[in-house]
């Protein structure tokens, strides 16, 4: 097969692959379902209601007709949209023309294109097409995408645009940039194997899964109610079960329930992990990093090294057992300057973290960090606000219900907050060197944040009344992709760091992006 990139003539206007019609319809249905799901639910329930409630059945054919009408209209609209959508390349610009009534022409000059990403969902994969997402540097222009084109063609367009872009760059600057854009030449840093995927799934935060279960069981409960005929509304369901089934059964029921809950939430996290991160590949490219992952929807995200402002990595108790971290690269978004994009890689080992650190902050290993703690007064404040206020509410409740158990709960709560706050204080550390800062905090897991001084946009100190009395301050570093905050350090230290950081930022001639 002739693999010459110029076998495609980009200058003639082209339509997308016909698969795009399906994709447009799919997107429309998704949107309709998302916005009108209550109406849809009514329609569906009315159609399949066994008891055939007479009061609503009169409206039912009417609503169904509307549904079919809207559906048909959007299908026609999708086909028209497909035939009216053209893309082509002319004079170093990617041009998209679309629209029937309101004609739109979008020109994106190559030098404004930051990255071109591919995305594939199930339909895409079945027909070997991709959706092409163009991230442009226009400050208020939305991201542009071509719904479906053949994979080879998409790759040809990408390599053509990127090589043209590279050519103009070499003409402008003295730097040696290779004339051809070698996208595929990237070093694979890591690949999630099945065991890695399992580790990531198990060490996930399971509260999300628990939330889904609770939402689901609430829904189940409402429909199951009908099956317990002698259950009176408002009655404590546990009491109902107790009187119906006997106490011994209830206790074992509780144990089973809790066990099932734990198992289910782990299972949900696992399934979600597999969906999201299946076959994850994290690689180092010429311009930065790239992550490809997903079971049904293949996602490809890349981070340009210059655009990365912050690097974060975190572990948790479970993650620590497996020796894995979740890594996040926070980059300044070009599409909208104040919304940040982060690409995250779960299941990273220390070696990959070190590679990323080395790329983001090459000098880090030659510089010496000095380590500093935060003020222990932060414990008092946390106990007062996080412990005291809820405890007061609990105590009030205890007084109203005259229950000693609830009052004991308040004491327990304060004790819990006191101990976690002590750990919070003990674990909060920041490490400074000439070129950057590394912060380290967390109660159960540890979150690390690495920031180079010259990426900082603004510095702020903030003092509450209590902090002013104790000559303390919170210190904030604002970057184009997030904020780093150091709480409760001495005002003097905060000012010292501010002075130094300002000096570093103002003297530095490098571009932060």
């Amino acid at each position, binding site marked *: 097969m002739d693999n010459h990139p110029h076998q495609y003539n980009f200058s003639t206007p082209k339509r997308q692959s016909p698969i795009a019609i399906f994709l447009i319809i799919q997107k429309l249905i998704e949107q309709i379902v998302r916005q009108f799901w209550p109406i849809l639910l009514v329609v569906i329930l009315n159609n399949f209601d066994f008891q055939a409630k007479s009061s609503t059945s009169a409206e039912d054919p009417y609503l169904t007709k509307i549904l079919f009408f809207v559906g048909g209209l959007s299908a026609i609209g999708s086909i028209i949209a497909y035939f009216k959508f053209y893309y082509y390349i002319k004079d170093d610009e990617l041009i998209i023309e679309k629209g029937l009534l309101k004609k739109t022409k979008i020109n994106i000059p190559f030098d404004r294109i*930051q990255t071109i990403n591919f995305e594939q969902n199930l339909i895409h994969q079945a027909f070997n097409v991709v959706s092409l997402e163009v991230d442009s*540097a226009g400050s208020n222009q939305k991201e542009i995408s071509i719904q479906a084109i053949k994979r080879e063609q998409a790759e040809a367009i990408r390599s053509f645009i990127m090589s043209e872009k590279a050519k103009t760059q070499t003409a402008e600057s003295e730097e040696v940039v290779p004339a051809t854009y070698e996208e595929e030449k990237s070093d694979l840093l890591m690949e999630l194997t099945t065991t890695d995927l399992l580790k990531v799934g198990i060490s996930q935060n399971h509260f999300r899964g628990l939330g889904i279960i609770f939402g689901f069981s609430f829904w189940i409960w409402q429909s199951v109610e009908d099956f317990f005929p002698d259950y009176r509304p408002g009655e404590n369901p546990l009491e109902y079960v107790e009187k119906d089934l006997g106490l011994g059964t209830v206790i074992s029921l509780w144990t089973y329930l809790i066990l099932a809950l734990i198992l289910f939430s782990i299972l949900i996290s696992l399934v979600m992990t597999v969906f999201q991160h299946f076959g994850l590949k994290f690689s180092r490219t010429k311009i930065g990093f790239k992550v490809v992952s997903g079971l049904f929807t293949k996602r490809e995200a890349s981070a340009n090294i*210059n655009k990365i402002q912050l690097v974060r990595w975190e572990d948790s108790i479970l993650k620590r057992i497996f020796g894995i971290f979740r890594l996040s690269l926070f980059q300044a978004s070009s599409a909208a300057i104040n919304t940040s994009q982060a690409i995250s890689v779960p299941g990273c080992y220390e070696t990959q973290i070190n590679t990323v650190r080395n790329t983001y902050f090459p000098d880090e290993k030659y510089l010496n960090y000095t380590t500093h703690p935060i003020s222990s007064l932060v414990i008092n404040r946390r106990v007062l606000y996080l412990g005291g206020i809820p405890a007061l509410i609990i105590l009030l409740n205890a007084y109203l219900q005259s229950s000693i158990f609830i009052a004991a709960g308040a004491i327990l709560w304060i004790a819990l907050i006191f101990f976690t706050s002590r750990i919070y204080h003990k674990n909060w550390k920041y490490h400074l060197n000439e070129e950057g800062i590394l912060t380290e905090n967390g109660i159960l897991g540890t979150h690390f944040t690495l920031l180079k001084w010259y990426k900082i946009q603004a510095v702020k100190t*903030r003092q509450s009344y209590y902090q*002013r009395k104790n000559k303390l301050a919170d210190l904030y570093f604002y*970057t184009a992709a997030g904020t780093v905050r150091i709480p409760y350090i001495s005002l003097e230290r905060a*000012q010292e760091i501010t002075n130094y950081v300002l000096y570093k930022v103002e003297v530095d001639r490098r571009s932060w992006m």
Partner: protein
Amino acid sequence: MLFENHEIDIDSLPKVESGEFTKLDSNYLVVRYIGSFIFFLIVGFVIIGAYLLTDISDTPKLFWGLVGFWILWALTSFILTTMGYKIRGYRLRDKDLIHRKGVIFKTVTTIPFNRVQHCEVSQGLIQRMFDLHTLQIFTAGGSNSDLAIPGLKDDTAQRIKEFIINKTDLAIENEVNEVIEEGPTETETLEVDEINTTDIEDIVEKQNGIIDNSKSDF
């Protein structure tokens, strides 16, 4: 590449904490009072309207509670505004702008000029009566780090804005461009025109908020 690594004496660095903050114009306090007054007047009217139109008058406890809350709120606002005025101020330095504000939470924010995205001078209705302006400074650091300095007399806001604009990275780059332009002027006019147009296009593009991303660190 040239490697420079001078020893930095931390104590010799310019200090954020030393030096006097420039206060806002005294008329700004009046502006704030008028603004608050109008606001609480409207709230008062709403309470009176509620008294006349609804049956809140049947429950005098609720009504007087509302009035009490209204007075307390207005009083707190008055005290906070007055105290806030005393604290609020700015310091214009050669390479950055420092802004201090806040009664309950005192914040000191510093924006280096080489991180400024753009500046805006605006004027509210009440501010116009006293010829006062607000200077807004935007960075890429998000809305929390953007600055708004109100109560600037006459053309102070405009002058500070121009001062800052001339110190941004963009302005410095333009200076460099001008130096480059001077070079070829003596040789060939045609080429110079070409260079000029591309440069101007570049500058226009950059001023439209497009960030040049072509520079690579490695």
